[in-house]
C-alpha cells in the first residue's frame, strides 16, 4: 500500500483513536508520518482533511457520562488521498505546528470555560444557600469548600488574563500548562461538590439533569489534551528546569 507523498497528494493509511466529534465534523486536523526514517518528533506533517474523502470510516466510541453517549471515535483511513496544498506549515514540520495549536488549546482556548465555571460556582452557592440556609452556610464545611472554590475560580480568570498578557508578546508556551493543570482539577472539585449539596438524590439521572452528567464528564478533563501527569512533567522540566 502506498503511504506518504505521492505526486501532489498525501496518501494516508492507518487508524487514529479518540477523535472527538469526528461523526459531526466536516474537516479534521491530521498529524501524519511523512518521513518514516526520521526520529519520533521529526518527519510528521500537519494536514487538514475533508471528512467526505473516500476511504474514511468511523467506529463510534461510547463514553461514561450516560448510556448511549457518543463523543469520540476511532477513525480508519484506507488509501485516503489529501491534496498536498492542505498541509499547514512545512512538510515534515507538523510537530511544531501541533505544539502551537496545543499551546492555544491548553491556554487561551479555555477562556470561555473559565467564565462559564464562575457562573457554575454561583449556581452551587445559590443551591447551597437554599438547602442549608445562608447563615448556616458560613460555618458549614460545604460553605468553606464553596468559598475556596469561589476564590479559586476567580483566580483562574486572573490566570487567563495573565496568559493573554503573555500571548500579546509571544505565543503560549509551557507556562500554559500551569493554568491548564490547575483548571482541569478545579473543574472536578467544583462538579464534585454538587453531589454533596444535592445529597441522596444525586444517584438519580433525570432527563433534564444539570449536575450529574457534567460531573461525570469532568473525569476526562485531567486526561484530554495531555493528562495531568504529562502537564506536571512539562511544568517540572520546561518551566522549572528539573532534569528528565
Amino acid at each position, binding site marked *: 500500500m502506498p503511504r506518504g507523498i505521492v505526486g501532489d497528494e498525501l496518501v494516508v493509511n492507518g487508524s487514529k483513536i479518540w477523535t472527538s466529534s469526528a461523526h459531526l465534523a466536516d474537516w479534521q486536523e491530521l498529524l501524519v508520518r511523512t518521513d518514516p526514517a526520521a526520529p519520533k518528533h521529526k518527519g510528521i506533517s500537519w494536514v487538514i482533511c475533508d471528512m467526505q474523502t473516500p476511504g474514511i470510516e468511523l467506529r463510534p466510541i461510547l463514553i461514561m457520562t450516560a448510556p448511549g453517549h457518543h463523543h469520540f471515535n476511532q477513525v480508519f483511513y484506507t488509501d485516503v488521498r489529501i491534496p498536498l496544498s492542505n498541509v499547514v506549515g512545512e512538510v515534515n514540520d507538523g510537530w511544531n505546528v501541533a505544539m502551537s495549536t496545543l499551546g492555544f488549546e491548553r491556554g487561551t482556548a479555555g477562556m470561555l470555560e473559565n*467564565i462559564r465555571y*464562575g*457562573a457554575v*460556582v*454561583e449556581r452551587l*452557592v445559590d443551591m447551597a444557600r437554599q438547602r442549608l440556609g*445562608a*447563615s448556616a*452556610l*458560613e*460555618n458549614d464545611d460545604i*460553605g*468553606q469548600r*464553596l*468559598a*475556596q472554590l*469561589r*476564590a*479559586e475560580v*476567580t*483566580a*483562574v*480568570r*486572573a*490566570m487567563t*488574563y*495573565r496568559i493573554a*498578557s*503573555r500571548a*500579546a*508578546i509571544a505565543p503560549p508556551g509551557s*507556562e500554559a500548562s*500551569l*493554568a491548564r*493543570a*490547575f483548571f482541569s482539577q478545579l473543574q472536578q472539585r467544583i462538579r464534585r461538590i454538587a453531589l454533596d449539596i444535592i445529597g441522596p438524590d444525586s444517584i438519580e439521572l433525570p432527563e433534564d439533569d444539570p449536575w450529574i452528567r457534567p460531573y461525570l464528564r469532568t473525569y476526562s478533563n485531567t486526561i484530554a489534551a495531555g493528562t495531568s*501527569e504529562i*502537564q*506536571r*512533567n512539562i*511544568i*517540572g*522540566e520546561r*518551566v*522549572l*528546569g*528539573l*532534569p*528528565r
Partner: protein
Amino acid sequence: MNLLPTEEQQQIVDMVRGFLAASAPLERLRPDKFGQIGNPDAALWPKMAELGILGLGVPEDGGGLGLSAVEEALTYIEFGRALVSVGVLGATLGAHLAARTMPDIAAAIMAGTSAVGLATPRGAVAGDDGIFSSEFHLIEANEADFILLLSSDAIALFRREEFSRQSERLSMDSHMRLMRATLENGKPLSWSSVKDGIDHARANLLIAAYATGVAEAALAGAVDYAKVREQFGKPIGSFQAIKHKCADMAIAAEVASCQVAFASVTLSKNSDESRFHALASRIVAVDSALKNGATGIQVHGAIGFTAEVEAHLFVKRAHLIDFIGGDQRVQKGQFIGADAVI
C-alpha cells in the same frame, strides 16, 4: 487588562529585591547567624524608609510616594520571599490610616522612627462605633509606639499604651516577638470598618501578596534542592514523585500571583470589586503558602526538618499570616456570605 508588570514596575521590584538580597538574605534566619528567637529585621525599617518603601502607596499629599496598590503588592511579594518581619504590614497600613488625619504620626512611621506592631484577635471582638474590647496577640510590638489592629471586621490604629496586660509569649514562628494583651474599651487614633472603604481590602491584598512571596520562595528552595540532591545515582528532581510535587508548588504559586495581580489592579482603580478580589486573593494565596511550605519540607527530606536550611520557615510564617486578622475559616465564612462579582 495587562497582568504583567510594566517596565517601571519591574524596576521597583528589582530595586526592592536587590536591597533585600543585600540587607535581608534568607540565611540571616539560620541559627548560627541570628539565633532562633526574636526579630532580626528591626534595623531594616530606617533603611527601607530611606528608599521610600514604607510609604510607597501613601498619596503624595500624605507624604508618601503616591504609587498604586499594584506597586505595593509587587513589593509585598518581595517581602514574603525574603520573610521580612510582618511588622512591615503595621508600618504600611498604619501609615495609610495616619496619613489622612495625623500627618506627624504618618511621617514618623514612614521615616522608620516609629514602629507599628500588629494586634490580631484571639476571640470575638466587641467593637461598636469605634470602641474595641477583646483579647489579642500583639506581633512585633515590643519596640512599637503604635499598634495596628486587624480583625475580619475592622482595621484600627492605636497607641500601644491602650493595650493592657501585655505579656510575652514564645511563638511557633520564633523569628518575631509575640505578646498577649487586652483592650478594654480601647479608643483608636483612627479606624475604618470592613464595610466602608478600601483599607481592609488593602490589608487582605498585602497579606495575600506576602503569602504569594512565601509560596514562591518555598518553591524556589525546593526546586534548587531537587536539582542538586542525588539519590540512587540521580538528582531527586528527575523522580516524578518529586517533580510532580514541585509542579504542584509552581501551580499554587502561579494561582496566588495571578489573583494578587488582578486584585491589585482593581484596588488601584478604586473599583467596587476590589474587596471581593482582595479577599479571594487572600484565600488562594494563604492556601498556596501553607501548601508550598509543607511540601517544601517533604522535598528536602530530613534536612528540611532541621533549622539549618530555610524550608521550615515558610510553613511557620504561612501559619502566622493566616491568623493575622482572622484565619482561613473566618475569611471563607465571610467570603461565602458576600455577593459574588462575576
